[in-house]
């Protein structure tokens, strides 16, 4: 029973990380920018929803507002920063450093305007729970599961079938060609960052509801998501999502077999071996982007 519960817990955590990974991968595969500030948007959205529910605004409205705020902040970063850097011919590395600057800025804006403290949502229902087939879930965990799977499916369908989704894929696969065929890559990048920043708000808020909010720790979550993205094969949204769940389940289960103090090392050792044996990731995709 312990194992089943540990797996269930890992799956929920993995779904939340999966959404972070998918949203990050969507932007990264399109633009090639290592958008570390994504972690800052994750944190910011959680605190916005927390602040709004504190004012008595219904949770669902607070969630929608934080998604919108996330999208706006993302677009602002793309238009004012990444686009300017692109026009200046900056290397991906320079964009990465600028992104670190944005991350630091966002985290401290949260600390200054909201609070540097660990906070919890004042929502009575967040402690309610359900037992499904003998496995225990909290209500926020159920929400994380449903919303992650739903949003993941939505992004995949959007990317495959909608007109904008196809346009984004065209830009991603050949930016140079997209430029001369009037697909307007820079505008497409703004749409992509809006979508991925809006998406990352959802786990940002829901994980906060389930556990607690912290201004300074989202970088580790993002990096785990990035590992999942790479192991899953850059460019494959499905690979990123599945690998997130696999990694989270391994980490959760590993607690039962080795002392938890080695669990991070275990996950990484597996990852490094995996990457050496299968450098193209779980899902074979042709992708090379030097950073």
């Amino acid at each position, binding site marked *: 029973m312990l194992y089943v519960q540990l797996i269930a817990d890992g799956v929920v955590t993995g779904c939340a990380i999966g959404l972070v990974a998918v949203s990050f991968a969507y932007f990264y595969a399109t633009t090639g920018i290592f958008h570390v500030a994504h972690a800052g948007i994750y944190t910011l959205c959680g605190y916005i929803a927390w602040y709004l529910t504190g004012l008595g605004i219904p949770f669902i409205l607070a969630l929608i507002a934080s998604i919108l705020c996330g999208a706006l902040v993302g677009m602002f970063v793309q238009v004012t920063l990444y686009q300017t850097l692109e026009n200046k011919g*900056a290397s991906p590395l320079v964009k990465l450093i600028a992104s670190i600057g944005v991350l630091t800025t966002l985290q*401290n804006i949260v600390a200054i305007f909201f609070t540097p403290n660990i906070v919890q949502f004042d929502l009575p229902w967040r402690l309610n729970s359900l037992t499904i087939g003998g496995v225990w879930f909290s209500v926020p965990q159920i929400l994380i599961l449903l919303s992650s799977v739903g949003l993941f499916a939505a992004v995949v369908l959007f990317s495959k079938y909608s007109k904008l989704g196809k346009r984004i894929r065209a830009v991603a696969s050949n930016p140079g060609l997209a430029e001369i065929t009037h697909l307007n890559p820079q505008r497409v990048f703004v749409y992509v960052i809006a979508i991925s920043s809006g998406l990352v708000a959802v786990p940002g808020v829901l994980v906060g509801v389930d556990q607690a909010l912290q201004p300074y720790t989202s970088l580790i979550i993002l990096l785990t998501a990035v590992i999942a993205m790479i192991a899953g094969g850059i460019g494959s949204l499905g690979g990123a999502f599945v690998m997130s769940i696999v990694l989270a389940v391994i980490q959760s289960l590993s607690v039962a077999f080795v002392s938890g103090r080695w669990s991070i090392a275990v996950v990484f*050792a597996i990852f*490094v071996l995996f990457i050496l044996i299968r450098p193209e990731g779980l899902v074979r995709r042709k992708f090379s982007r030097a950073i």
Partner: protein
Amino acid sequence: MNYFFSFLVLAEIFSIVAFSTNLLMGVVGIFSVAQAAIMGIGAYTSGILVMMGVPFPLAVLAAIAVCAGVNLISSLPSLRLAGDYFIITSFGTQLVATAVFINWSSLTGGASGLSGIPVATMFGYSFVTASQFAVLSTLALCLVALSFWLILRSPYGMMLNAIRLDEIAVVASGRKVLQTKIGVSAVSGAYAGIGGALYAAYISFIDPVSFDIHVSVLVVTMVVVGGARTLAGSIIGPFLLLAIPQALTLIDIPSTLVGPIRQLIYGLLLIAFMLWRPQGIAGKSL
């Protein structure tokens, strides 16, 4: 003027580590975010040896040897993996190293660190205060900078540059790319080892947090802000990025928000720098 000298010493130590990163990242194109871990291995090696009674110069040599070896091994995957993958692999190296620093507590003192590392003594001189230590760190920095300059100027350096620009062409022209990369990794590791050994001797206390992922990212930032692939950049970057928080302490800020506001200004300055001079202060285009 201990404050001035303690700033100087720390900036010089980080310059040495920046040279290590610059050699890997800027010159060969191996992008690593694990240089703080290598520096940490140097710090622990030399710190532990000195505490066991080994003379400081020997401990430094041991740190250099160990770090050259570890850096070489941890760079091996880059021979097989392209850019993005290696960043994450090196991130893994960093996390594993931190886990080892924390959990091998019988050797490293664990999360509570190694305290009371003896003062550096060399040829009968003790480097106790910041101003005395500055002599030692300046000397070390000069040596590292000189060797960096020599490597860049040598035919070997030309080849390194060629590898970064077009590895396949270099292979095709019959040069030994593998040996070159391995050689550079070892030298880069040696630099980090020197930096680590000096750090341990100067601060006299080391713990896993001193060499975690944030420090690695800071060092990469230093190199990029200063200007990758340049000698001046590896010195300007660390001095500047360490000076900014110091200068910010002068601004009068309401006490409860002191920390976050300083960090916020730091973040904004970083963005501004990248917008103003993406190639780094002393840099050529990257």
